[in-house]
């Protein structure tokens, strides 16, 4: 007869204690089960534990354990999720992670564009004059007035104006006179215009009538 004395603190006993629940439920590998059987053959402590766990297993067979497992698993899942979020506040979505990487660059570009637009706005000169659609350019000041003969044709009138270098800037008035702007108001210019056959009279507005 051989006998073995094992310390309860030995590695073999500790390993057997850890594996005992799965020896009882019959899910150990063949090698592990064989090792457990060898240990149980001479360890009264583990033999007692094995019987105790067999009773526990038998008792639990009638307990509606499935609901408990689901509840416990839900709790574990929530804890795991909570610990993951608290340990590293990472963005779960890959698109968001991509956006997070580009966010500083996008903000920098937007800021640069805004600064450029602001500079353009500040440095561009503005025409502050107030204009309306009815505003007309300043009227040309007439410097002579002419009265054409009543039988003068349009062609004759145009020839006279071209020859004197004059243009009509107003008229006809109630007396059928036309206001003219002569390039130069000189006696010679007035005399030249007066010599035209279509002209009845010419008068310089500053100097008075000369005919």
């Amino acid at each position, binding site marked *: 007869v051989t006998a073995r004395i094992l310390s309860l603190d030995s590695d073999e006993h500790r390993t057997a*204690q*850890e*594996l005992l*629940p*799965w020896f*009882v*439920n*019959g*899910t*150990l590998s063949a090698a592990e089960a064989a090792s457990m059987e060898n240990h149980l053959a001479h360890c009264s402590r583990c033999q007692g534990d094995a019987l*105790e*766990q067999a*009773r*526990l*297993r*038998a*008792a*639990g*067979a*009638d*307990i509606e*354990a499935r609901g*408990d*497992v689901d509840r*416990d*698993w839900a*709790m*574990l899942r929530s*804890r*795991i999720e909570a610990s993951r979020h608290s340990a590293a506040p990472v963005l779960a979505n890959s698109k968001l992670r991509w956006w997070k990487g580009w966010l500083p660059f996008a903000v920098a570009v937007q800021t640069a564009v805004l600064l450029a637009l602001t500079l353009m706005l500040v440095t561009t000169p503005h025409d502050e004059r107030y204009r309306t659609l009815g505003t007309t350019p300043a009227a040309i000041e007439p410097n002579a007035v002419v009265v054409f003969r009543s039988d003068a044709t349009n062609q004759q009138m145009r020839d006279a104006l071209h020859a004197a270098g004059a243009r009509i800037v107003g008229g006809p008035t109630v007396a059928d006179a036309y206001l003219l702007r002569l390039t130069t108001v000189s006696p010679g210019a007035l005399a030249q215009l007066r010599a035209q056959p279509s002209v009845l009279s010419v008068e310089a507005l500053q100097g008075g009538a000369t005919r």
Partner: protein
Amino acid sequence: MADQMRSAVSRMLDVLSAEQRCVLVLTYFHDLPYAEIARIVDCPVDTVKTRVFHGRRRLRAMLGDDAQGRS
């Protein structure tokens, strides 16, 4: 006796932490191997063994107290 054991176990399981209760139930009442339990609860195999070991010890202590209380 079996009914007493059953009710005691059910009551004591509620006292355990969720981690211990989960691995004990999967081990004793669902007969799952430790590797499968580790995969289910997403932790190392050694952690499963440790949780079952300590959970078992707490159960044994509570059952002992319960037996003394009844006697």
